[in-house]
């Protein structure tokens, strides 16, 4: 009996692997890449397959929260390439770095500069409610865009990160991929399945992380970012000071 069970198990595994590689062959690879990293993209399918394997492993860890909420597809968009998934992970790593207990704004700027993202800082200060720095980047990595961070502080005092976010391209697995990246970078489990299309985690030190697809009105009404109708389904990944937990 045990032998039979073992045999069935092996057969199931083989069938799953076969299905996996069969579906991979249909995935389009027609994606432009960042000029600085074009050499990576030109490498063989091995790089893509390792990226996809990591993706499916990550997606499997998402757990009941995301799957029960129907996480996965967003409107439009082609599947993310390995390079874009690497970008996604790079960006969630940067978010994780920025909210470390002793992290400063300068650390974030250094990380962005080292990654060749060309950060810029705009100040929004007043004598009543203090200083706010807005950090943006001009050269986001492939598959991501609109990095936005807000640092608050008083004059001559070290500022703290109140909000950090970026956008990830829409795609059939974009939400799952974003969730997986957050889990890997911030070392968290399944998100709290409290809201439709809004996946959230409570972190240490009063921070929350969340992943959500953006509707047209969210995109249109963003006071900082330009809007295009094609952007519907874009994923936003954010870490910020918690305000309204359920």
């Amino acid at each position, binding site marked *: 009996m045990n032998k039979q069970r073992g045999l069935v198990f092996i057969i199931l595994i083989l069938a799953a692997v076969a299905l996996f590689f069969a579906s991979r062959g249909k995935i389009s690879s027609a994606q*432009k890449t960042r000029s600085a990293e074009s050499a990576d993209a030109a490498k063989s399918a091995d790089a893509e397959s390792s990226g996809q394997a990591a993706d499916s492993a990550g997606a499997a860890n998402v757990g009941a929260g995301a799957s029960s909420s129907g996480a996965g597809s967003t409107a439009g968009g082609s599947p993310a390439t390995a390079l874009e998934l690497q970008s996604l992970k790079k960006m969630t790593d940067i978010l994780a770095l920025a909210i470390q207990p002793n992290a400063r704004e300068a650390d974030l700027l250094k990380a962005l500069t080292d990654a060749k993202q060309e950060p*810029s800082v705009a100040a*929004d200060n007043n004598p*009543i*409610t203090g200083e706010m720095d807005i950090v943006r980047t001009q050269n986001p990595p492939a598959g991501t*865009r609109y990095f936005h961070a807000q640092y608050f502080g008083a004059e001559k005092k070290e500022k703290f990160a109140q*909000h950090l*976010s970026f956008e990830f391209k829409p795609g059939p697995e974009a939400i799952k991929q974003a969730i997986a990246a957050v889990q890997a970078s911030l070392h968290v489990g399944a998100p709290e399945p409290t809201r439709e299309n809004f996946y959230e985690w409570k972190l240490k030190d*009063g921070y929350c992380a969340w992943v*959500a697809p953006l509707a047209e009105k969210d995109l249109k009404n963003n006071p900082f970012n330009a809007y295009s109708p094609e952007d519907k389904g874009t994923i936003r990944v954010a870490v910020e000071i918690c305000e309204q937990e359920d």
Partner: protein
Amino acid sequence: MKLLSNGLLLAVLTSGYSYGASAESFLVWKDGKGLAKIEQCRESSQERISLKVSDRAELALSVRESVKIEDKTLVRAIKENPQSTRVQVLGSAQKHMTEGLIATQKLQSLGDYVLEIQDVQTGRKLKGRYLQVVFEDGQYKTISCGTGKSAQRFVVYNVFNAENQQPVGRLGIGENETQFFKSIKIYTSEEADHLLNRQLEEKQLPDSRGSSASTSKPPSVSPPHAISTTAPRGQHLIIKVPLNIKPGAPSEKSTTIDSQTEQNIGAIQTEVPFQVMAAPETAAQVAATGTAIDSVVCLKDGTLSVRDESLQNILFQANKLEVVKIAQGFVAPKDPRYIKVQFSARSADKNTGWVAKEYIQLKSACEMTKPAVQAQRQQANQAAVAVAGAGGALSGDCCNFPLAKRPTTSYKEGMRRFAWRRGANRIHAACDLYGSVGDAVNAVNDGVILRGPYAFYGGVYAVEAVHTGGFVVRYGEVLGKVAAGISSGTKIAKGRAVGFVGQVGGHGKLSPMLHFELYSGKQEGPLTQRGAKGYQRRGDLLNPTDYLSRWEQAKFGASY
């Protein structure tokens, strides 16, 4: 419709007229009479008007019969239901006065559109003028004229022409008017702005190359130079005109209606000869608008070519100091010397393109706008300090409730109340006022905007303001949509819209709400304090409950 001869009518309102006062005259349009001066008018406002703009839709005349109505057709809503609304078509010569049912979701607010008067018979004296309904603080401005049986109500419209950035006058039109609306054309605000710009160019610049596309290859060797010698263009700012600015008074809102002189009234009618063109947007104007991260076309003179994605074709010319948002995509640009930008003030069909990157800079960094930005910031800070030190005080009588509608549930109970414990380490630092997404959030008192909207939490934003007497309010969980004219340093009057109710998580289970935080103003520094236990807020945080309760009682006659 036979017009009565009107001549030039004077609807002179004496300066010093106060909102709400009586015995004033106003210029209105009346079916059968045309332009008329009407006496004994008092200003009022209302949340809704029956006039709507329909998208392209099916109008069900009966169970079996329907007709199509075109996009942007003016209709009058007769009976509204959540699914369908009975309407009367107004803005269509063929279907004028036709009634039927239309899907409610196809109807849009008239406030988002501009009307052009086209028919010579009906609108001889108004042909070539553009009307935009006056919508302030979540309310449509109306005037009530006359008394008793002769009392009439008119919806107020700003009147624009191509020669002036500001409205040239105001006109009242009854909601029940029909002939007036028979032959109009409707534009979105962006389309009207673009149209008026073009009219201005055609009159001012006979050799302008206009906006037609031409072919030009980008330079391949040296840094791209895309400056032409076309004279700078003026820019109409219909969508940015603060709706509480009176004709002829490009300044802060006042509580009086400026005099409508003969010239202004004459300007409403088409016989007035062509006037002096509006000046191009100045560095100071650029400095005072938008967000801290806005960029500009950093040119001293001339224009900048805006290209299509191939970079081979020029779509249009951008003016010096035009404000742009940088439009990032998910893939690298073909040519790193170019950057994609979006021009917020241009019409949607022609507001995006690629420009030479070296000419796009933060307005705080561009040498042409940097001094103005610094000066504007200094003025804003001085204004904020002045307001903080001005007389008056936070009290149960000082201020207005921040929402036009009463919250749908009590803000004194449960997780909505101030000091509700949120998890192990945090205490709720506000009262949550439940409403509907898009409800106007209004300034509780006169004051100055300090900051915002900025990202607050869960996809919603916050606006900070200091109010007369020095207390500070954070209007939290508002939409990212910027209320008209609101940016850092804007002086605000009590009741002015500073934002719109949002919903954390977009479409999630948390109700839409205004997260209202109140501070005495006795401390300085950021309102959120990381690591602070309990409220995680600045030390002068106040419990707003009693104040809100009294303001609620004053406005609605009841309080939770």
